[in-house]
């Protein structure tokens, strides 16, 4: 079973590396790993899906050079969880720069903002599976409400 998974991911990674240099605005095929149980065997399957964000994309964001601050003039705070959650995986990890396509400075800034939002407990549903999810259940002083000042971001 483990070998099966390895093979599947290898093929996926292979296709991914080949087409990385092509930046497109056309409908993208995105893969999702499905987990199936078939009589004592776990089967992992890479399924082609249409991007859930396809018809919700803002036009300027489809350009290759897009930056929420420079292009749209957005002053993103750590409380704008609807924006920040787009740069985050389902386990709460920040996506890398080759996927977010942000400049270095913006990537750093977004990363800090995402950390702030996570620490403030504003995105508890985007967390690892072993997480308690409820910020009120955190240990020690972390269970109390806290907010962050964007002026403390270095980038």
């Amino acid at each position, binding site marked *: 079973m483990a070998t099966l998974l390895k093979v599947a991911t290898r093929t996926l990674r292979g296709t991914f590396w080949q087409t990385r240099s092509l930046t497109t605005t056309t409908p993208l095929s995105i893969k999702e790993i499905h987990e199936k149980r078939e009589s004592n065997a776990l089967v992992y399957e890479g399924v082609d899906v249409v991007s859930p964000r396809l018809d919700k*994309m803002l036009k300027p964001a489809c350009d290759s050079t897009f930056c929420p601050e420079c292009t749209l003039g957005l002053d993103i705070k750590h*409380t704008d969880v609807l924006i920040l959650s787009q740069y985050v995986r389902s386990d709460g990890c920040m996506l890398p720069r080759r996927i977010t396509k942000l400049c270095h400075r913006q990537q750093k800034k977004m990363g800090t903002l995402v950390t702030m939002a996570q620490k403030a407990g*504003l995105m508890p549903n985007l967390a690892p599976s072993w997480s308690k999810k409820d910020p009120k259940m955190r240990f020690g002083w972390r269970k*109390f*409400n806290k907010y962050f000042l964007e002026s403390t971001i270095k980038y």
Partner: protein
Amino acid sequence: MSIAKRVQQWATFARTWHIYDCTWQNPFESASLVKTHLMGLHKPIYHPMNDCGDHVVLINTKEIALPGDEWVKRVYFHHTGYPGGASWTLAWQLHEKDPTMVMKKAVYNSMAGNLQRRHTMQRLHLFHDDQVPQDILANVTNQIRTPRTVPQRLDHIDKETLENFPAIMDYPKDYVLR
């Protein structure tokens, strides 16, 4: 004094009751607001020798928010008076013991240390949640606006807003969704 004038004078000097929701508020920013209403500084008739302070009801003091890591940086000092009787309590420890204490101390310390301060504090009513006795709630005629907006949690945003929210980043080709 005519009846109209008497009623008018009663209205001018009547103590009004304000309510203030501490949810996601900085206690030290809120303290200066609350102090203003407690001492009557918001009234044009204010004078230090004029007893015109109002009552303020603070609710949800358990839900106050401190910036950054101030929960572990802010320390409350107490000394029993005996040798070795000094103790330092972190803000979060104090908040865990008594969820109204941080707010109360913030208001107390925001006022000048004069003889009036203790009497002014008698007009402050603190509640750690939103369960306020009905006889107190019946007096309230005004709500003080908070300086900070309450942030919305991602899992509390309704489904419709979540689905219709515009995207500013699409996944690259052959991206594996996780």
